């Protein structure tokens, strides 16, 4: 698995398509996948492990969402927590981790 992270609207999708080429199996906006899993009462980390066991070569793109003031709403706090912890797990499992800022990728693993 290859993991690409970064803030909103940083050119992640275009960067990944260039870096990974046409045939890659890409899941973008993974934070929205996590949001859906939380609403359905699923454990995002377990879901990620299942995904990786089925598709070890998948490419995941996810927004970084943890760089703000702690939200007042519990659902938002839980969302940030879940995205953060799930991406820690993903980064540990990933072969490469690239962080994209201003369209520029910095490989951090």
């Amino acid at each position: 698995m290859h993991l690409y992270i970064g803030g909103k609207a940083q050119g992640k999708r275009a960067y990944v398509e260039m870096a990974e080429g046409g045939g890659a199996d890409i899941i973008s906006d993974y934070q929205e996948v996590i949001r859906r899993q939380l609403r359905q009462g699923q454990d995002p980390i377990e879901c990620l492990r299942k995904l990786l066991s089925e598709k070890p070569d998948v490419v995941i793109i996810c927004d970084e969402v943890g760089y703000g003031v702690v939200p007042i709403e519990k659902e938002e706090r839980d969302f940030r927590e879940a995205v953060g912890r799930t991406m820690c797990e993903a980064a540990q499992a990933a072969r490469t981790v690239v962080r994209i800022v201003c369209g520029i990728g910095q490989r951090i693993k």
Partner: protein
Amino acid sequence: MRCLVTGGSASGKSEYAENFAVELSRGGPLYYIATMEPYGEEADRRISRHRRLREAKGFQTIECYRDIHQALAFTPDPARSTGSAADAEDGSVAPTVLLECLSNLLANEMYAGSALKEEPEALAQRIFRQIQELDQRCSHLVIVTNEIFSDGHRYPPETEAYIQSLGLLNTMLGAWTDQVCEVVCSIPVLLKTAAAAAAFGKGEERCQF
């Protein structure tokens, strides 16, 4: 050595900071200064998660919610303790201290305790001086802070003052510490390194500029 560890929420920065402090201590005394005041179920859950992570790593926990310069006031005199890591020049053993975390400490100083209304800058300056005072009793100090600056929201004045204070504190500590590290999805990204860092086998340069 002084080290600042930053990162977003749930980025794995606590675990990284703990492991780093353990390495720095080299078997010598190791203190964990916990600043999170227990208030309700969510805090309890976070606290017990952090406590589990610290278990078996050798930390002695000190609860200190404000006035951080006094955190080590009731610990044994470093000069009288025994241990293998003799970092002080006179052979006494000062502890390695992990301070976690600044965002809680600042909130405690701002919203609880004294009713003194300090300007954001004065507040940051005061906490910075108190951390420097704390540092005088430490052989190594690892400080965990938080990136809360990039959500684009405009908050009420009190919250904006809090953000200002924490940002200022982070920049002061960034200048003062030997090493600054941002933890991203559990991966440490070094923003500032020191020659001292190389001595601890942590000198891998990741900065691209």
